[in-house]
């Protein structure tokens, strides 16, 4: 297992290297640069600034400096925000985005498994139809609509009760996190409900479930011991991509709820062509995602013995 993990981490590193290179190339292909902003400036100031940030150097040289700094863990200083390093930005704002993302994933995963199982258990009965209707809504309605609706609902609720039951925006306590993470996780949850439903329905008619019945086990025991664990495998497989969807989707939700997450800085940086911030955040997000996918694979191995053992002997 250790060998397998190391192997996966190494390939992950190579992926991150490609992400860094492609971002660098793409950014330099975009016309304009961080210095040509709103204000007109004299060629002398411009030359000075270019010298200061090393933009007068050949592109290949810049690439080399950029890579060496990344290896050292230094993403550089922002072009547009005075005296703020990319590392600072990440340190200050990533924990917020990560908390939001993790909560959203947890809500999506548990909600998906629970509601998916319910629909399968009540197949073709009222609860199944109701949940599947909501699922279609959840998949087709974009998250900013849910965000606005959620805020509206909370405002009305607060006004109706005359108390601040839930804050409408901002960040800080768990009550701040509840609504945004629910909104953020909703789409993924709807997707997972569908997946879980079909997965349970598939497992239900398998031979080993019949064996379990023939052994005289109670329906609950059959469900927990034999159906759930096997049915949850496909859900875990898609968790990796789901994390990607949630972290990128987070930008929108963060801005609707005025959450000081990384998303805002990312969007700003792209608008201003803030080279270091774009590259720093892309590489950071890229490595985060790669790491999460590896983590999901390892969890998968823990749940499905066929995989962990096969990998142990194969790799």
């Amino acid at each position, binding site marked *: 297992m250790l060998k397998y993990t190391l192997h996966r981490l190494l390939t992950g590193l190579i992926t991150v290297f490609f992400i860094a290179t492609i971002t660098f190339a793409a950014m330099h292909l975009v016309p304009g640069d961080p210095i040509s902003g709103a204000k007109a400036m004299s060629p002398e100031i411009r030359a000075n600034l270019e010298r200061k940030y090393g933009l007068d150097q050949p592109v290949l040289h810049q690439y080399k400096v950029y890579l060496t700094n990344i290896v050292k863990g230094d993403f550089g200083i922002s072009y547009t925000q005075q005296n703020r390093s990319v590392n600072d930005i990440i340190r200050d704002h990533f924990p917020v985005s990560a908390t939001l993302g993790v909560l959203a994933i947890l809500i999506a995963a548990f909600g998906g498994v629970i509601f998916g199982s319910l629909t399968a258990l009540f197949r073709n009965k009222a609860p199944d139809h109701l949940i599947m209707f909501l699922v279609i809504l959840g998949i087709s309605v974009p998250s900013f609509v849910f965000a606005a609706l959620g805020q509206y609902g909370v405002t009305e609720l607060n006004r109706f009760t005359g108390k601040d039951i839930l804050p409408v925006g901002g960040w800080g306590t768990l009550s701040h996190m509840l609504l945004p993470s629910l909104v953020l996780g909703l789409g993924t949850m709807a997707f997972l409900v569908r997946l879980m439903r079909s997965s349970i329905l598939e497992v239900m008619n398998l031979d080993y479930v019949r064996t379990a019945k023939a052994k005289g086990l109670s329906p609950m025991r059959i469900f927990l011991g034999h159906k759930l664990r096997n049915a949850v495998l496909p859900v875990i497989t898609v968790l990796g991509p789901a994390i990607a969807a949630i972290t990128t989707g987070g930008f929108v939700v963060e801005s609707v709820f005025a959450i000081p997450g990384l998303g805002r800085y990312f969007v700003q940086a792209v608008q201003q062509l803030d080279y270091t911030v774009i590259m720093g955040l892309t590489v950071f997000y890229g490595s985060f995602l790669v790491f999460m996918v590896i983590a999901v694979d390892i969890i998968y191995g823990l749940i*499905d*013995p066929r995989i962990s053992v096969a990998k142990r002997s194969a790799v």
Partner: protein
Amino acid sequence: MKNATNHRTKETLLEVSDLRVEFDTYGGIVKAVRGVSFEVARGETLAIVGESGCGKSVTVQSLMGLIPMPPGRITSGFVKLKGQDILGVSLEKANQFRGKEIGMIFQDPMTSLNPTMTVGKQIAETVRVHDGVSADEGRKRAIELLELVQIPEAKSRVDHYPFQFSGGMRQRVMIAMAIACKPSVLIADEPTTALDVTIQAQILRLLRELQRERDMAIILITHDLGVVAQMADKVAVMYAGQIVESGTVDEIFYQSGHPYTLGLRSAMPENDEEKSKVLIPIEGAPPDLFNPPVGCSYFERCPNAMKICGRENPALFNVSSPEHLSRCWLQVPRRAQPGGGGMRKSLRHTLNTADAADAAAETAAEGRVTFFEQPSAPFRGDESGMAP
């Protein structure tokens, strides 16, 4: 070969009477089992044979409560286990005998075990549910059971997952699981169909040993007459959802009283090179169970069919002994048979005898009758021949 008569006096463990099962499908109602009755006594092996789709699996699965309802439906009949009704009982009641009084093993050991649970836990589960023992005790019992079904290094194998076992080993695990609570009846639904011949012989030998040790009744579902010859005391031949012939294994093989049984035997390969012959298949296909025929279900394929066979389904008639029954008009009781005493002749006995002519004239005055020769004796799997 065990002597079936030894078991005749024993108590009846399981009694199935007039079981009828239907399935609702898009194409209509399939009458899968149409009035099946049989009995099994302690220590006895009943083999149910027949081709695919004849209803043998549905029969045993419905008495275990394993057919999905809907679309399945039991329309009549009762099943008694030690005198108690077990057909159509509540799930709680069913779970008191499933795995405890009746163990069951299935055809495909590759898919019948849960791939994400160690075999030890799967075996222990049966014991824990029925005997209420602790996890540790369950594990201990699982190891003992694995040893009992002759899995080497049971102590370490108990923590392995099914995919780490071969097909034969998995079937042993299935057997261990099914007999964990010392059931009085073991249902084996084609236990060796998915295994190769040497492994098949080992598994059958294991089943026989366990049966002897525990005085367990076995209901063996198979379409392999070689397995029947090797294992069974009694045989029930099923065709199109009905038992068409039943009797002791000797009666079925040597005094076949139904054209279908004879057809099966003619279609069976010989192990003996000198005797080897061209196999004679049974022409045609079984009837459509959406709309079963009014008359005998074998009428369309029967070389001995008479007019009455197409009109009316025969009852089960006695053939050579009170327990040898055949659902065939050729076995109809004849009124004035000297010394017959209600006992019918096997088809072999009627061959080319005066009796035969009488029978033909009497039972089928309006139809054509052809008598058939019994094929040579089937391969009897004796111990030395089958043991690896």
